[in-house]
């Protein structure tokens, strides 16, 4: 009983503290609508973060072993984000609150919370997708040895993302960024008994760290040239035409984009994401949908005005669009050869992130974020569907699946909706978001984007084909034909299918938020920013492009169905369609992982490390060794002085004392009468002295 009350009292104490904090908070930017709703929005990241600690300390004793608390945190973020989204749509919200948390010289570190269109979209997305994934995870993780710990890390993961998106400055963004990084490491390596999973966790963490160097360098250049870590301040300086910022803007933008490439798994930093499949499926679902990989897109979106200005970081846009283009097409191809269903979806995510990045590079802020939004729903749906299948057949490999549509109807139908949304079938959400991206790239190509944009346009249309093709393959191999595995497949419990249905609904209908020429709720939503977003926004559908892309998608689906749909004796025969020269390249992931291993990591760990060790031992250590030797000599001299002079003094004094004592002690004979006589003699002497004086 007391254990159950403890979290409540902590919670109340937090509320009281929060009230005090609120008292010292100051408004940085007055909103269109303010009020308690936005002033208390700091709770959105704080609640899941605090719940993480509550789960760590009290989770095992709580009724749902931590699941309830974690899910409550997500539900809270979802509801709060939803209310904010509603108010934002009706009235518009622009708010930035902050409290000072530290002062270092002239630099004031602030903990803040931005409440504008972009961050509200992320609060809502992380909350809703997180909530559904957490609910699902209750069923999926049942019986796990580290069940409570899993939900603590999971809550930290989502909480870190909320810290990231609420950040009004680069410092807090980095804090959130690293929280997401470290919790992703914990979650990917959740089954650490198997060393491969630890490797995957390390790979994700290390790859991100390499890219994070770009983020840190970018933040430092930004702060030095703009004089602030604050986004609003940076934009103000930019508006005022700060020359220093203009001078270093390209490098700041490029370095920050490298950071974004790492988290958003853009080529060539994409290697960690497919390996991150080692984590439990709910982790993959959240990581690929609302959290972590969206951070890079979010960062570019947050700094979008900066990337839009030709005199600042505008020159990076061709780099962004080309990186996005390469990622969306070539990483999509890798999904064709994967046998692990989660790897298919992982490469699909990398490819879709490429679309988002390309959209950002094309100057289409809304299109990129809209795809992020819709993708979050259908990709988490696909992952949870895959998780449901894996849960049923106890294998990740599609060669162990087949014919599951009869065994798992709910999973099958929701998976099909997710697939339709992913490949971009009318009228599912993916159709609207992906078409808007392709249209935006086309617009950019036609309006000064140059050859790079035309090239990426072709890649993005090719990417649509590839996406449809590998999804046709995955669906065929998983749900059609006859069952090839050994376990007895069964439909997953309600706790897992209900989130699937929820996400499928989102994946199906959220396209309606932004139908070009019909509705533009989403555009209004995310362009509600303190600094105006100078983006191109399509007023109507680009019919010629739709007329190209949709048939391509349908053809790809049909070809994929024809090639992989028919049932054969063995799975190897079903999946035997290969292009001889291309297959080995794809199967080896373009040798990029091998290149990193043999070209960078091993040489670094071998000759370079040895050389560094030699320099360390012989050059760097020489200085301390020299200093140490000199110190030993000085100490020797000091020791001699100490032994002869200082000790000599004390020895002499103590020897003198000893000798005197030895002489005086002779008076102590032990004879009582002698003492008595002496003391009487003393009395006589005193009496005599009295008489005389």
């Amino acid at each position, binding site marked *: 009983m007391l254990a159950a009350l403890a979290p409540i009292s902590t919670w109340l104490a937090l509320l009281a503290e929060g009230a005090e904090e609120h008292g010292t908070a100051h408004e940085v930017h007055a909103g269109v609508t303010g009020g308690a709703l936005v002033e208390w929005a700091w709770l959105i990241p704080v609640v899941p973060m605090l719940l993480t600690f509550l789960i760590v300390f009290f989770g095992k004793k709580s009724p749902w072993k931590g699941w309830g608390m974690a899910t409550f945190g997500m539900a809270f973020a979802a509801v709060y984000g939803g209310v904010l989204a509603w108010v934002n749509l009706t009235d518009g919200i622009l708010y930035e609150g902050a409290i000072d948390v530290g002062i270092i010289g002239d630099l004031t570190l602030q903990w803040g919370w931005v409440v504008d269109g972009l961050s509200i979209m992320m609060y809502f997305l992380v909350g809703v997708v997180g909530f559904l994934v957490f609910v699902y995870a209750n069923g999926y993780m049942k019986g796990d040895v580290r069940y409570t710990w899993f939900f603590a890390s999971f809550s930290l993961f989502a909480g870190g993302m909320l810290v990231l998106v609420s950040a009004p400055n680069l410092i807090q963004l980095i804090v959130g960024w690293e929280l997401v990084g470290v919790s992703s490491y914990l979650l990917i390596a959740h089954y650490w008994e198997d060393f491969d999973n630890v490797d995957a966790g390390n790979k994700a963490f290390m790859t991100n760290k390499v890219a994070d160097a770009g983020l840190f360098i970018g933040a430092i250049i930004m702060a030095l040239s703009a004089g602030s870590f604050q986004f609003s301040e940076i934009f103000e300086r930019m508006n005022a035409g700060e020359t220093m910022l203009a001078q270093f803007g390209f490098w700041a933008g490029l370095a920050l984009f490298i950071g974004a490439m790492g988290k958003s798994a853009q080529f060539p930093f994409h290697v960690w994401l497919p390996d991150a499949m080692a984590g439990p499926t709910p982790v993959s679902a959240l990581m690929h949908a609302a959290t972590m990989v969206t951070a890079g897109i979010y960062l570019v979106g947050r700094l979008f005005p900066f990337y839009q200005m030709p005199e600042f970081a505008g020159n990076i846009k061709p780099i962004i669009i080309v990186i996005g283009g390469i990622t969306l097409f070539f990483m999509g191809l890798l999904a064709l050869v994967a046998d692990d269903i989660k790897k298919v979806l992982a490469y699909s995510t990398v490819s879709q992130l490429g679309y988002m990045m390309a959209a950002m590079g094309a100057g289409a802020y809304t299109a990129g974020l809209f795809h992020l939004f819709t993708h979050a729903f259908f990709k988490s749906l696909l992952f949870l569907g895959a998780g449901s299948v894996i849960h049923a057949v106890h294998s990740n490999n599609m060669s162990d699946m087949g014919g599951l549509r009869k065994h798992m109807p709910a999973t099958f139908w929701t998976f099909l909706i997710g697939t339709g949304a992913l490949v971009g079938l009318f009228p599912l959400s993916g159709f609207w978001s992906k078409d808007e991206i392709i249209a935006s790239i086309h617009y950019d190509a036609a309006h000064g984007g140059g050859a790079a944009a035309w090239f990426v346009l072709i890649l993005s249309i090719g990417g649509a084909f590839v996406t449809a093709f590998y999804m046709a393959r995955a669906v065929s191999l998983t749900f059609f034909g006859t069952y090839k595995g050994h376990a007895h497949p069964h439909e997953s419990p309600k706790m897992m299918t209900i989130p699937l249905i929820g996400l499928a609904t989102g994946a199906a209908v959220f396209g309606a938020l932004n139908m070009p020429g019909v509705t533009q709720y989403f555009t209004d939503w995310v362009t509600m920013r303190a600094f105006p977003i100078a983006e191109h926004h399509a007023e109507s559908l680009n019919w010629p492009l739709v007329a190209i892309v949709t048939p391509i998608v349908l053809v790809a689906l049909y070809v994929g169905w024809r090639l992989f749909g028919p049932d054969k004796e063995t799975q190897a025969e079903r999946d035997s369609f290969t292009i001889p020269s291309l297959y080995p390249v794809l199967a080896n992931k373009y040798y990029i992982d091998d290149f990193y291993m043999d070209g960078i990591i091993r040489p670094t760990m071998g000759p370079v490390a040895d050389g560094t060790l030699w320099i360390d031992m012989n050059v760097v250590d020489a200085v301390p060794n020299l200093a140490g030797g000199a110190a030993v000599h000085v100490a020797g001299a000091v020791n001699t002085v100490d032994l002869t002079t200082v000790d000599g003094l004390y020895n002499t004094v103590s020897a003198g004392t000893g000798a005197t004592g030895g002489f005086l002690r002779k008076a*102590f004979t032990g*004879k*009582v009468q002698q003492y008595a006589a002496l003391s009487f003699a003393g009395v006589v002497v005193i009496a005599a002295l009295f008489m005389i004086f």
Partner: protein
Amino acid sequence: MTIVQFLLLGAAMFSIGLYGVLTRRNAVLVLASLELMLAAVNVNLVAFDIYLGDALRTGQMITLFLIAIAAAEVGIGIAIILMIFRNRQSADVDELDTMRY
């Protein structure tokens, strides 16, 4: 009767007692001599009390206390000597030199 006679008596008793304390070997006799010294002090106190005509009889009061204390002291002294005798089979003060350097 003058005070001098009593003072002479007290001085004589004190001297005899002191002599005993310093020369006797037997601890019991040393203790007895010590009592003699105390008695000499009592004589002096009473003599001065009468001589000075103190209305409160302070000297005699202190004498009473001294007698009581002397009795207690003898009790403890004898007990100590008995214990020493039991342990060492001797009450010779010359042999009690364990406190020697």
